[in-house]
């Protein structure tokens, strides 16, 4: 397994845990917004692993934004990590998998990408962009034997939740991971986790705009 994230000491802890359970783990401290490093780092990972079966893009940021706040710095940070980082990483992965005719690409999008809401416009926009990007990758790659999974979690109990104002149906990261793992094995195109968000978002997506714009949801 290749672990890519900013904080080396946390990565090493996870790597040690994997190794003590008999697995193989390599650690690559990297900021997903350092796009220029990806063309070298991606082949390095492939070299160290010897092969690649699944890539999961889970990087994302959601700074707290006030209802009357319009802050380009924060908006750009979200687009960089949530969208451009995904393109920087999943592009090469798509190319590699397409050539191999196999593999799974997993992108962690969000229920927040299904509608634009009053709380955090740029976050909604970034996740909508990611979902659409993943859908397009899927349409390109399915015919080449590559599986693309869009994951739309609700509230997951991670550091990101500290920026969320109201949280409910909170699930643990382990629970979300188990759902994702199952979806990769059964090669599903899109999942909500927990699954009940699928029902909720189907309703939410059908609320007409003249009502939705008056809701504080």
């Amino acid at each position, binding site marked *: 397994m290749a672990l890519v994230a900013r904080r080396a000491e946390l990565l090493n802890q996870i790597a040690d845990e994997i190794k003590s359970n008999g697995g193989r783990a390599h650690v690559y401290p990297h900021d997903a917004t350092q796009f220029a490093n990806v*063309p*070298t780092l991606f*082949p390095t990972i*492939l070299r160290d*692993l010897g092969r690649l079966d699944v890539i999961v893009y889970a990087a994302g940021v959601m700074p707290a934004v006030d209802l009357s706040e319009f802050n380009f710095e924060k908006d750009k940070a979200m687009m960089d990590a949530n969208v451009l980082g995904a393109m920087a990483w999943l592009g*090469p992965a798509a190319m*590699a998998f397409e*050539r191999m005719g196999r593999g799974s690409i997993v992108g962690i999008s969000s229920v927040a990408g299904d509608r634009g809401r009053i709380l955090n416009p740029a976050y909604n926009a970034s996740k909508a962009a990611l979902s659409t990007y993943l859908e397009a990758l899927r349409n390109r790659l399915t015919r080449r034997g590559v599986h693309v999974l869009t994951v739309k979690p609700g509230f997951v109990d991670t550091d990101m939740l500290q920026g969320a104002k109201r949280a409910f149906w909170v699930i643990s990261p382990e629970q979300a991971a188990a759902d994702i793992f199952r979806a990769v094995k059964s090669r599903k195109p899109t999942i909500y986790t927990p699954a009940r968000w699928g029902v909720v978002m189907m309703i939410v997506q059908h609320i007409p705009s003249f009502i939705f714009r008056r809701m504080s949801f």
Partner: protein
Amino acid sequence: MPFPSLDRLSPLENFGHSMGSPAFVYRPTRAEQIAELFESASRCGYTIGLRGSGRSYSDAALNGGHIVLDIRRMNRVLEWNPDTGVIKVEPGVTIQQLWQYTLEDGWWPPVVPGTMFPTLAGCLAMNIHGKNNCVAGTIGEHVLGFTALLPNGDSITCTPQTTPDLFYGLISGAGLLGVFTSITLKLKRIYSGNLWVHAWASPNLRAMMSEMEPLKTETDYLVGWVDSTANGRALGRGQVHAADYLHEGDDSAPAQTLRVDYQTLPDTFFGLVPKSSLWQFMRPFMNNVGVPWVNIAKFLSSRFLSHHHHFLQSLVAFNFLLDYVPNWERSYGRGGLIQYQSFIPKETASDAFVEMIALTNRRGLPNYLSVLKRHRPDKFLLSHAVDGWSMAMDFRVTAGNRAKLQALCDELSEMVLQAGGRFYFAKDGTLRPEMAVLFLGVEALRRFRELKAQCDPQGLLQTELYRRLLCGPA
């Protein structure tokens, strides 16, 4: 431009489609590009695996996630002397190119494998043998010299007389010591494009071996096809082919038979089925139910239709039987196949092979085709040769039988090692790390590692086979 470029990524497989891994493939056309590749790989921390036509059944030409140097674009004939039969070629020249180039002048490669597609670089790296091993030895014995580029930067010229260590090391060295840049071979003079073939049926393995033994140096080519799905008294029954070159004057029209188009294999079977799709017709029979019937039919036809037949057969048809059915390996289905070939000294061979065939049937993993050959020892460093016999067994691999098959091969390997036998890197995909030293011997492995340290101090040349078997503790 980052190195390696993602554009170079290719899914590579072994010949049997039973192993595979992606690698960054580079296809140099000049030796300078190889030197540049060494430099870039070393700077960026990648290793380089060498690959020719990818006809190995093993992981010898795979290097997952790293660089693979495909030699096939260096494929020019550099010098040819039709009076002496000495030819100098680039390493990517294939056996097919070679015989087609020299046949009309009356020369034939002295040693060829069962298919004409391998490159000479690959043939030398594995030091391949043919059905004439007892008479002609391995291909390395017909190499007058070669040039090679080593990862340490040296360009070397080797002959068996001037640089025996490097000569006998690089040939048989599995592409782990250096890259051949040119190869000089002495070919075999022939007076006809046909062989005189004698075919007969043998009732079981011991009978077959005792029939073949007195012929080992009497006849040019000698091979046994074994039905290894038969048991009991018929265990190891099959058909023997013995073949001889024609002498000068035996062929009344050598100019006819020494033509490439005379040798060319037909495009269709029964004038109907295109050979490119034949493997699809074979596929329904390639399972544990169908194969015994195929073997029975084959044996009965050899026993009753062609017992003690003498006939003329073209060199190509006799030597490259497998090439009659392009992609025959695909008939084994999605999981592909492995070939398990072991080489056992003559004293212990018949007992060991009988036991091994019986074991494969007891384990419910019959091998679909076995080939028996007689061998002689050679002087090469990582040699597979013995004064004895080899048996090559083809096993179908499926998603469900992988673990069982590995366990069977472990058992077989124990039996081979007990019998003082050896293995062949072009074929082996199942040996355990500790088994390499047991058949190569401590001394040969130590000398290989000395040569490796001298030619490739950074360990730049690596393959999955190397990491599996040759770089562990001595």
